[in-house]
Structure formats: C-alpha cells, structure tokens
C-alpha cells in the first residue's frame, strides 16, 4: 500500500500553498474545537484513514470528549452537540456530499444564524480544506500514524 507518490516530495510548492490555506483557516478566529469536529466528520464520510486518525488524536489531545467523536455520525440523534456545532456539522455533511443535494436552504439558514459572515466563510473554507486533504491522502494511500 506504500508505492504511491509522496506529495511533499513530488510537488513541494503546491503543498506549501495548500498549507497557506490551512493557516488562513487556523488563524481565522473560528474555534479550533469546532474545526476538529468538522475535520473528523468529513474524514468519516470520505473514509480517509490518515485524516481521521490525525484529527481524532488531535481533538482528544485538545480536550474533546472521545464519546462525542465515536457517536459523531449520529450527531442528530443526540443532545451532545450545541446548536452552533449542529449547524456546522449539517453544513459539513452537505458540502462534503455536494454533488448529491448541494446545500439546502434550511442547512444554510441554520449556519447563517449561528455564524456571522466572516466565521461562516472561514467555516466553508475549513470544510473545503478537509475535503481536499481527504482526497489527497486517500489518492496517495497515506498510511495513518498509529503510534
């Protein structure tokens, strides 16, 4: 499973520019605990082992409750997530599976209710970024760091 290209070696300028987008999101002011939930949820949907391992590990290190991550696919059926988190997770799912049903009005409106425009734009870009990394890591069969 390990003979596919290593992106950092093959196209360092491109990867560095990807990093620039990540930095913008990271420094946007959006709370990191929320970004980790978004990253975990998208990685679950897209099935990216590398990303899921990394973001779950980071989330737990950052103080996230591990049960919330384990039950995350069923967030709708719990009372464990705030309205703000629920709005972000619904947007994450719609944007991740964009080809299916785009972003319906009720999903958008719930997000716009919880996030002012700058935060909402940063959230949109955060969702795009994890979707980008998921695709790159799956395509290159990047092995999760299981240490």
């Amino acid at each position, binding site marked *: 499973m390990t003979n596919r290209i290593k992106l950092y070696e*093959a196209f360092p300028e491109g990867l560095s520019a990807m990093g620039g*987008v990540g930095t913008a999101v990271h420094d946007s002011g959006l709370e990191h605990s929320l970004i980790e939930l978004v990253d975990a949820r998208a990685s679950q949907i897209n099935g990216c082992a590398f990303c899921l391992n990394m973001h779950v590990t980071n989330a737990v290190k950052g103080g996230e409750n591990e049960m919330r991550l384990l039950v995350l696919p069923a967030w709708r059926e719990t009372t464990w997530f705030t309205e703000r988190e629920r709005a972000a997770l619904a947007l994450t799912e719609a944007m991740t599976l964009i080809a299916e049903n785009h972003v319906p009005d009720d999903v958008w409106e719930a997000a716009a209710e919880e996030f002012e425009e700058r935060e909402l734009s940063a959230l949109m870009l955060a969702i795009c970024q994890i979707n*980008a990394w998921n695709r790159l890591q799956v395509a290159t069969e990047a092995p999760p760091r299981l240490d």
Partner: protein
Amino acid sequence: MPPRINYAEAFPEGQKAMYGFAKAVHQSGLEHSLIQLVLTRASQINGCAWCLNMHTRDAIKAGEQPRRLHLLHAWRETPLYSERERAALALTESMTLIAKTRQVPDDVYDAAAAQFNEHDLAALMLTIVEINTWNRLAITAEKSPVLDQTLPG
C-alpha cells in the same frame, strides 16, 4: 439570484490563500488544455454553475472544441480524448466522488502514473482538489453566472 454570501469579502485572508494555491497549481507545468478538461469535468459532477460557465468559456477561448466539453459526461464512450486525458479524467471522477468510491483503485492510479511523471501527477491531484474547493464555495454561496448567450470566439 443574489449570492447567499460574498465569502471573498467576508474572509479575505482565506481568498488570498486560495489564490496563492490556484497560482501554484496553474503554474505547475501541467498543460492548460488538460487542466480545463479536469476543471470542467469536476464542475459537471458537482453541478457548479459558476465554475461550468467560467471554465467552459475559458476552454473555448483557449481553442477547445465545444463538442469535447459537451461529451465530457461520457468521455469513456468516445475516441475524442487522448490516453493522457482519459487517465486524468478517470482520476478526476474517482477523487471527486471519494465518499462513494472510498479509494482511488489501483487501475485508475496506475493508468495516471503511467501517463504523468510524479510532479505532474501531484499537480493533477492538486488541480482536482482545487476545483472541488471552488465548486463547494460557489455552490454553497449560490454564486450564479450571468448568461451570455454567445459562445466565445
């Protein structure tokens, strides 16, 4: 239909970083005609009006035949695309629909690796994720193009 949000204005650092990323990708050395096919195909799959309008127009202005854009939906069933283009399009579809495909299968990856050296293959992958980002932003914001009935050129 007015857009839901102007994300570029609301979060300019993000937009600036995305432009930096786009620049690195478009200056990668990958041929522009191929990039336009990849951008168009992903935008067809994701259903992004803004991107479809922009990239088909750009492609035609740069000399692409409209028929090759129309038939991208069924590229497998025509002889209109080179082996290199076919390999790129298969990778585009596999990566774009990753939640469905769950992986880029060996045959798709190997066909792409046979056509593209490592640098170009990485640039191709980054092109695919770049357009998937632009599609998501524009679709979410309901960014809608103005209809200009005339084909360019």
